[in-house]
Each structure stands twice: as structure tokens, then as C-alpha cells.
């Protein structure tokens, strides 16, 4: 088992479900982390390419700690990553966050303003999990 | 830790009702925050199956039961095991004194359920102090 303790990069995975707004919020928040908040500290793993054994996802999944942003109660991202031997060290559950912040996305195809607000809050949560796992606060 | 300075606080498993979760939550607040030195808990199911070690324990250490509903499973299981049951709490009694609170949720309590659990935990803490003082 690879030693994940001193990693400078964290893998991040988003729910791939397309039938609910929760999945779309999960993806939007992960894009924000990857493209804006922690672009130098994270590697994105896509579930479907991973499960179709497409590089580089298959290599990434076992080589660094993973933060997951899961959509609904089915928790597919969590279960599929565990089946592929991933070590989940941080998790944000969109359904819980939606309850916590009291906002829900408009639809799967258009998350709307509330969905944007929710995905921004989740992106911040995920970014701080990344910082915690790397062990240093990112200099703002 | 002498035998007399320890009290077992045993909640019902209450898997079907909010007040079962309130009793469980109150127990954790008590044994992890309010009286961590003086109190312990155990699984009620161990008494149901007659686990010898724990049955012997509760026969020699003062016990408090916390039940979420009038069926009183915690009380009845402790009594059936001939435990040293000194005080019986029923969550509905505490709720009756705080009618403004509307506890909800089973997996996760709402804020009012959390508040009721803390009020219950504080009441039980007073009983624990009395038991230990009187021992």
C-alpha cells in the first residue's frame, strides 16, 4: 500500500450522475477547485474513464489521497473509488451541504443561482480539505 | 476509581423514534462532556442477549435507564438482568416540561432535538451527582 502521508497533490473526484441537480453541483464545484482554487494542488479523476481503465485516471486513483464530492444518497463516486482501491481521506456530500445551507439546485441541466451558491460553498469546503490533507494552509 | 464513584447510564436503542435518538444523544453528552469520569454506558442489546460480563457489572454498579417511549425497553432489560437500577428517565417527561420544543429527525436531530438532549443530559447529571454523593 502506497504511503500517502507526504503528498503534495491530492486527487479529487466528482459524482458523475446526470439525472439530478446534486450531481451537476458536485461537478461544478470540483471544476472550481481544479480550475481556480487549488489548480496547483489537485489532480482530477473522472469516474467513467477510470472505470473504463483509461490512463491517467487508473494510475492516479491509487497513488494519492482522494477528496470526493458525492451527489445523492446513492454515493456512487464513493463506492466506485473504493472498488478501484482509492483511499478516500476527505468527503463532501452535496445532499448534506444542500440541507446545511438550505439551498437546492434548479435542475440537472441548469443548477441556477442557488446551485451556483451551493457549488461555491462546496468548492470552498473541498479546497480546505485539500489544504488539510497537504498539511499547509494555502497562502491566500 | 472506587466501585461507588461510577454510574452506568443506559439508553434505549430507539431505532424507530426521534426520542430514542434524543436519549442516545443525551447519554453521549453526559459520558463524553458533562460527567466523563463518573459515567459509562453499554449496549442495551448485550443485556437482551444476556452477555455475562456486562450483566455481572450492572448488578454491582448503580444504573440509570433512559427510555425514549413508554414501552421502556432500557428499564425492562436492566430489570430482567437484575441490574442495580436506581433511576428511570423517560424522555417524554422532559419533553412535557419543555413543550415549546419540537424535536425531529432520527438519523440527525434538528436543533430543538439537540436542545432537548442537552436538557435531559443535565437532569441526568444531577442524578449522577446525587447517587455518587449518597453512595
Amino acid at each position: 500500500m502506497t504511503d500517502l502521508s507526504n503528498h503534495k497533490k491530492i486527487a479529487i473526484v466528482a459524482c458523475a450522475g446526470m439525472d439530478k441537480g446534486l450531481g451537476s453541483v458536485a461537478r461544478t464545484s470540483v471544476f472550481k477547485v481544479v480550475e481556480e482554487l487549488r489548480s496547483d494542488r489537485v489532480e482530477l479523476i473522472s469516474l467513467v474513464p477510470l472505470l473504463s481503465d483509461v490512463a491517467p485516471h487508473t494510475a492516479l486513483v491509487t497513488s494519492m489521497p482522494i477528496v470526493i464530492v458525492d451527489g445523492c444518497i446513492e454515493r456512487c463516486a464513493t463506492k466506485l473509488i473504493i472498488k478501484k482501491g482509492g483511499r478516500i481521506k476527505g468527503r463532501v456530500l452535496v445532499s448534506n451541504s444542500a440541507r446545511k445551507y438550505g439551498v437546492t439546485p434548479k435542475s440537472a441541466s441548469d443548477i441556477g443561482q442557488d446551485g451556483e451558491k451551493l457549488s461555491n460553498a462546496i468548492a470552498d469546503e473541498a479546497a480546505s480539505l485539500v489544504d488539510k490533507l497537504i498539511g499547509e494552509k494555502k497562502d491566500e | 476509581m472506587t466501585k461507588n464513584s461510577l454510574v452506568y447510564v443506559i439508553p434505549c436503542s430507539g431505532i424507530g423514534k426521534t426520542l430514542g435518538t434524543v436519549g442516545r444523544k443525551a447519554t453521549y453528552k453526559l459520558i463524553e462532556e458533562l460527567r466523563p469520569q463518573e459515567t459509562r454506558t453499554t449496549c442495551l442489546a448485550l443485556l437482551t442477549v444476556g452477555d455475562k460480563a456486562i450483566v455481572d457489572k450492572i448488578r454491582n454498579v448503580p444504573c440509570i435507564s433512559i427510555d425514549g417511549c413508554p414501552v421502556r425497553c432500557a428499564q425492562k432489560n436492566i430489570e430482567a438482568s437484575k441490574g442495580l437500577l436506581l433511576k428511570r428517565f423517560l424522555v417524554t417527561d422532559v419533553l412535557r416540561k419543555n413543550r415549546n420544543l419540537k424535536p425531529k429527525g432520527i438519523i440527525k436531530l434538528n436543533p430543538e432535538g439537540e436542545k432537548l438532549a442537552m436538557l435531559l443530559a443535565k437532569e441526568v447529571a444531577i442524578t449522577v451527582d446525587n447517587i455518587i454523593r449518597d453512595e
Partner: protein
Amino acid sequence: MMAIVKNKVGIVSCSGEELPEGTVSRIATRLVLEKLRPDETVTICLPLFLAGGEDERSFTRVYPTITVDGCEKQCAKVGTSKYSGKPAATLLVTDILKKHPELELASRDELTPEETIVVDLMVEEIVKKVDEILYQQKRMGN
């Protein structure tokens, strides 16, 4: 002999108060009951087998029952077998922890998001068993 209720599966959780594994079995059982198979499942408090009467003890004769235990003492399995009848299936949280050594449990009251991964894996096991039992019932036409 009491007739088995069709399309309904019983779940008895240890819901043990002393260990985090008990909290996992409790929450996993509740998630299946409330969100994943709300119409197909029913539960009963394990201590009620002793505290209750014949109605409660007939539980496994009315519902094919899955027991969900947190630790090796398996009170749900033992208690159900002792007071009610042989469970149709038995599940154990520590089996999941043995299969996934990287997952750790520490909190009894509020599980962390990472600890709830164990809950999700147990939910998956319970749902699989529920669906298997319902499928068997359908095939046997009852």
C-alpha cells in the same frame, strides 16, 4: 403458522450504544428504511424482543429478517435467533472494516463524512440483501 408478509423485509440493527460500529449499523439501517427501500422494509428495536411480548417476538415469522451487527458479539443475530427466529441474512460492520483497513471509526455520536463511508458500504450490503430476498419471494410466487 403466521403468514409471511409479502414484499416486506425486516431489518434488526444492533444500534449498539457503546461502539462507533453500533452507530454505523444504526444509521445504515435507518438510511435503508427512510431513503432507499422505504416501502419494502420495516424494523423493530432489538431490546423489544425481551421487553415486549409475543407480537414483537413473532417478527421473523412475519418478515424475512436481516440482522445488522456492529461488532463480533453480534447481539442482533443472537437476540433475533434467541427470541424470534433464524434471520434470513446476517451482516456485520467489522467485516467491512476488515475488507477496507484504510477506513477508520472513532466517533460514536456524530460520524465524520469520512467515517460515513463505512455507513455507505453497509447500506449497499443491506440493500443487496433486501433485493435478493424480495427477488426470491417473487420467484417463489408468494
